[in-house]
């Protein structure tokens, strides 16, 4: 009787109106500021939209995309971005998992260690970038003075085309790892303790417990950490903007930085949108592939 009644009044007009009323501010803002740019970038990508001439927008078909293929800086910034992603993901996620496993046992000391590892996370990207710039200064930085002290040669770090990107990778992982550590810790907390008890009764050693209990139980957490870190890594812009201005020799020019330069600084909205569109498609495909791979394993 009751279930039948529920079935009949699945939706009421009153409740529907109310619900959309509640969601209206969010829907309007998301439509303008989130979906709007996506739709706009698709349509701008096929035009010669120049920001200062908003009344002279012409449809130019695939011209922008032809130009992308010939633009060495697009290729360079794609390669740089993928390099960053390929280096930072294993370093940062690996460090985060390692730290989480190390401080997983709840005790007074470990909560202090957790705070230490998490501390860089609350710093802003600008503060972190400036701080590392000063620390890594080839002449007056503390790191080089330490290297000299232990008998190693000074390093150019951010001033060298070969070392700049790896340096940004390390600085970024230093800042970000504490965040992913927290997520891993939350995942570890959810693993029932009796699984480990049963395993040790069966004579499984620590490594086997890790391999056959901890890792499989962290699967959802790992997928989440992987994908969010990946999305964050693809968006790299502030660190090179502050630390190197994309140099030396464009070695730290990332795709989002190049989009920013073309669209905001040089006002070439059409071309910037076209690069953005290509990049969004590539990253989305990449993320979907990653999701499938991680799910199927």
């Amino acid at each position, binding site marked *: 009787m009751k279930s039948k009644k529920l079935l009949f009044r699945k939706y009421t007009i009153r409740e529907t109106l109310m619900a959309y009323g509640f969601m209206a501010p969010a829907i309007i803002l998301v439509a303008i500021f989130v979906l709007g740019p996506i739709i706009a970038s698709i349509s701008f990508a096929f035009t010669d939209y120049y920001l200062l001439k908003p009344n002279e927008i012409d449809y130019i078909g695939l011209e922008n995309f032809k130009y992308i293929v010939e633009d060495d800086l697009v290729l360079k910034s794609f390669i740089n971005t993928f390099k960053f992603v390929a280096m930072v993901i294993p370093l940062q996620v690996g460090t985060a998992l390692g730290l989480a496993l190390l401080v997983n046992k709840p005790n007074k000391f470990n909560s202090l260690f957790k705070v230490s590892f998490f*501390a860089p996370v609350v710093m802003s990207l600008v503060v972190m970038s400036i701080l590392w710039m000063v620390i890594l200064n080839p002449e007056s930085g503390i790191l080089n003075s330490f290297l000299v002290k232990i008998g190693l040669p000074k390093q150019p770090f951010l001033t060298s085309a070969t070392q700049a990107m790896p340096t940004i990778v390390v600085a970024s992982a*230093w800042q970000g790892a504490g965040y992913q550590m927290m997520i891993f810790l939350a995942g570890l907390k959810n693993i029932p303790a009796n699984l480990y008890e049963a395993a040790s009764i069966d004579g499984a050693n620590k490594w086997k417990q890790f391999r056959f209990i901890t890792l499989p139980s962290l699967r959802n957490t790992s997928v989440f950490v992987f994908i969010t870190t990946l999305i964050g890594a693809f968006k790299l812009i502030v660190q090179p903007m502050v630390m190197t201005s994309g140099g030396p020799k464009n070695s730290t020019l990332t795709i989002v930085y190049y989009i920013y330069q073309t669209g905001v600084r040089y006002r070439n909205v059409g071309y910037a949108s076209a690069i953005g569109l290509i990049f969004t498609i590539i*990253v989305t495909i990449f993320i979907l592939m990653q999701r499938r791979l991680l799910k199927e394993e």
Partner: protein
Amino acid sequence: MTVKIVKSGLYYMFLCGLAFLFLFPIIWMVVSSFKPEAMIATDLKTIQALLPPLDIPISQWLDPYKTVFSRFDLIRGIGNSLLYGTIVVTLSILVNSLAAYALAKMNFPGKGVIFSIIILIMIVPMETGIVPLFVIVNRLGIVNTIAGLVAPAIASVFNIFLFRQFFIGIPKSLEEASVIDGAGKIRIFFSIILPLSKPIIATVSILTFIGSWNDFLWPVIIFTDNKRMPLQVILNVLNNTEPVYTNEIMAALTVSTIPIILIYAFFQKYIVEGVAHTGIK
């Protein structure tokens, strides 16, 4: 037994080493902000680099702060950042919790579609849309205004998601009791749901405030007027304005970081919960 002690000794030494790697830049930043410029350079070669300048009178420790505050309008920057953060947090709580309440507790056609769009937005990387976003804000005529800065930051599918997860956990019986009393949905939301949601409101407020305080890219794009710039942008200006003094830079960086570290220290529980929630669900 002794093997065990040695083992745990080594374990803690290893952890201390790791903690040092994560903390030494921050320690160096803070202690250098209290030193005269020449002392930073001479201290570099010894452990003194990571210790406060005990051989100079405490009254001089704040000198780098005094000079950097007189050279740059940091006060205005801090004021701007506080203002923008407060506006974004207030509106963000209101807009996102309302939407999340509808998604968590009401039945209406199109719910599945809206939820799929939310998930999709969370997956697709949005930063490449920054140029079209700038164009839209430009068309709306709100470039170089506070509205232009905060409006894109208010609605957050991530925060809607966090609120929704929390609201789902609130037992229906609490609402039903007030429905019998004749309370409408709006009254239920403001007088029952929101007061019960203090933990998630705290989490969302803190994460949103830290995000706003630390934001750099959008203000750089949207503002042309230097008087509106938040602290993060001024820090970058300061780092590029000759003459550059390390102690002054470190003082400014410390000023930017201290409020966030205090927020973190006081509300650690809520931040950790926010981070944990996003991971598990």
